[in-house]
C-alpha cells in the first residue's frame, strides 16, 4: 500500500478564509478580463465560424471504385465480420466481369449503430471502404435516412453540411443512381 502524505497546512490555510479570498480574486480576474478582452475565451461560435476538421478524422464511410467505375468491394464479408456494432449488412451476387468472383448486391451501413471505430477500414483487403469523407455531422428527420445504401456510399460526395449554413439543409440528400443500372 502506498501512503500519500497529506501536506501540512499552515495556520492561515487552516482558517480557510484567506485562501477563499485568494480563490475569489482568481475567478474575479478571469471574469473581468473576459468581459473586456474576448480573445482568451475558448468558445467556438460554431455555425458562424466553421471549424476545420482533422484530415484523418474517422467520418462517414464511402466505398471506393476501380478505374472503370465498378466498386472495388468483392463482398468478402471481412468488414461485416469484424464490425463490433453489427451495422454492416452485405448481400453478395456473382460478378459478371469474370475478373472477380463476387460483388455486393446490397451494402448497407446503419450509421446510427456505427461506433466509428474504423475496424471495417482496417479489415478490408481491397481498400474498398474508407472513412475519409469528412462528413462528421449527419442529420436527418427520418430514421431510414441513416441506413446508408450502396448507391449513396459509392456516390455521396460528403461534406455537404459544411457548405450550407442552415441546420435544416443538413439532411442527407440521396444522389441519383449512377451505378449498376
Amino acid at each position: 500500500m502506498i501512503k500519500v502524505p497529506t501536506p501540512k497546512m499552515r495556520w492561515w490555510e487552516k482558517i480557510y478564509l484567506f485562501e477563499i479570498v485568494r480563490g475569489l480574486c482568481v475567478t474575479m480576474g478571469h471574469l473581468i478580463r473576459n468581459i473586456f478582452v474576448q480573445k482568451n475565451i475558448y468558445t467556438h461560435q460554431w455555425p458562424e465560424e466553421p471549424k476545420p476538421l482533422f484530415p484523418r478524422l474517422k467520418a462517414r464511410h464511402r466505398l471506393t471504385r476501380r478505374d472503370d467505375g465498378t466498386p472495388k468491394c468483392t463482398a468478402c464479408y471481412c468488414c461485416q465480420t469484424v464490425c463490433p456494432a453489427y451495422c454492416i449488412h452485405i448481400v453478395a451476387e456473382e460478378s459478371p466481369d469474370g475478373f472477380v468472383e463476387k460483388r455486393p448486391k446490397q451494402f448497407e451501413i446503419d450509421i446510427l449503430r456505427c461506433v466509428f471505430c474504423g475496424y471495417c477500414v482496417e479489415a478490408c483487403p481491397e481498400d474498398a471502404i474508407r472513412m475519409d469523407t469528412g462528413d462528421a455531422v449527419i442529420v436527418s428527420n427520418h430514421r431510414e435516412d441513416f441506413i446508408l445504401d450502396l448507391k449513396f456510399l459509392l456516390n455521396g460526395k460528403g461534406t455537404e453540411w459544411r457548405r450550407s449554413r442552415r441546420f435544416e439543409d443538413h439532411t442527407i440528400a440521396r444522389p441519383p443512381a449512377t451505378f449498376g443500372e
Partner: protein
Amino acid sequence: MPDGLVTLIKACCVLAFQMILVVVLIWFERKGAAYIQDRTGPNRAEIFGIRLAGLVHPVADVLKLVFKEEITPPHVRKFYFRLAPIVSLMVALLPLAVIPFADILPGDGGGFSFQTLNLNVGILYILAVSSFGVFGIIFAGWGSNNKYSMLGGMRASAQMISYELAMGLSIVGVLMVYGTLELNEMVRYQGGLLWGFLPRWGIFVQPIAAILFMTAAFAESNRNPFDLPEGESEIVGFHVEYSSMKFACFFVGEYGHIVVVSSIFTALFLGGWQIPWLPTPVLRENAGFATAALLLFGVVGGVVFAGLFGKWRGRLHELYTDRRKNEGQVWMICAAAIAVICAVILLAGFWRGLSPQGSLITAAVVQIICFMAKVVLVSFFFIWVRWTLPRFRYDQLMSLGWKNLVPLAIFNILITGFILLGVG
C-alpha cells in the same frame, strides 16, 4: 388610500423587485460562470435580434417550463408532493416583507414606511419563516416516495437545521449591539460613524458575526459550497421527481432565497439603505445635489456605454449576417438616449428648487437605489463564490457547522457582552 391597498401595492412592488432580481441572478449565474470559466455563455436566444447579452435566456426558460408537460409519477404521496413546491416558494417570498427599503417618510400617523409589514420583531419573523424552508425540502423528499429523493431531503434538512442554529446565534451578537428587533431601527443605528471615519455598519461592528452569518446563509440557501442537497454533478437531490412548473417553483425558490438572504445581510451588516457618510437628514437637505449627482452619473455612464456599444457594433457587423448584427446599434441609441435625457433634466436645473415634499421623496428614491445596489452586489457574491469553491464533503459540512460555527458564534456573543459591559 386605505391601509390595506397601500400594503398590497407595497407587496406587489417588493415581489416585482424580487422576481426581476431572480431573472437577473439566473443571468449572472450563466454569464458569470461562463466568463469565470473562459467561456462565452448564453448568446443565442433573441427577440428581434436583441439578445441582451443572454438576458433573454431566462425568458425562454420560463416559456419552456410553462409549456412543458407536468408529470406526477404514480408512486408519489400526492398531498406532500404538491405541497412541497408551494412551501419552498412561499418561504422564499415571505421574508422580504419586513425588509426596509428606505427610511420612514415623516408624516401623520407614523409616516410612510418602506416596509410592507412594519413588525417590531422583524428579525424573529424572518428567522421563523426561513426555518419553514426545511419543510419544503422534507415534503419534497418524503412525498416523492423515492429513496434518492428521500436521502437528498434528509441531507438537506439536516444541513439546514444545523446551520439555522449557527445563523440564529450569529444574529444574537448583532441584536445585543443594536438593542432592537426592528429592522428599520437596526438600519438607523448603522447610520453613525465608528471612531469618526468608518460607517457604523454591522460588518465593522460585528465582523465575526458577519462572516458566520454569511457562511450560514450560504448553507441556508443551499448554495455552493454547501449545495449538497442538490449536488448537480454527482448526487441526486430532493427534486428529481419534479417537472415543469413544480420544478420551476424550487428553482425560483432557490434564487429567491438568495435575494432574501442578501437583503437580510444588507440590512443587518451593510447598513441597509444607509449611504455611507450621508445620514438621512443631510441627504434630505441636499436632495437636489443628490439628484444632480445621479443625473451626472447617468450622463457620464450613458456616454461611456454609447461609446462601448458603438465599438461593439462594428464587431457584430463582422460576425453576423442576420438580424443579430443590429443589436449594437440599438443599445448604442438607448445609452445615448439615457445620456441625453439625463443631460436635459440636469441642464433644466429643476433639481435646484425642490419642494420639501419633493426632497423627501428624492431622498427616499436615492436610498432605495442604494439598498438595491447593495443587494445586487451581495447576490452577485453568492454567484461568484459558487464558481470559485469546491463542494464540501458531508462530514466536513457537519463538523464545520457544529464544531466551528456554533462555538465561534457563542464566543462572539460572550465577547460582545464583555465589550458592551466595558463600554457601558
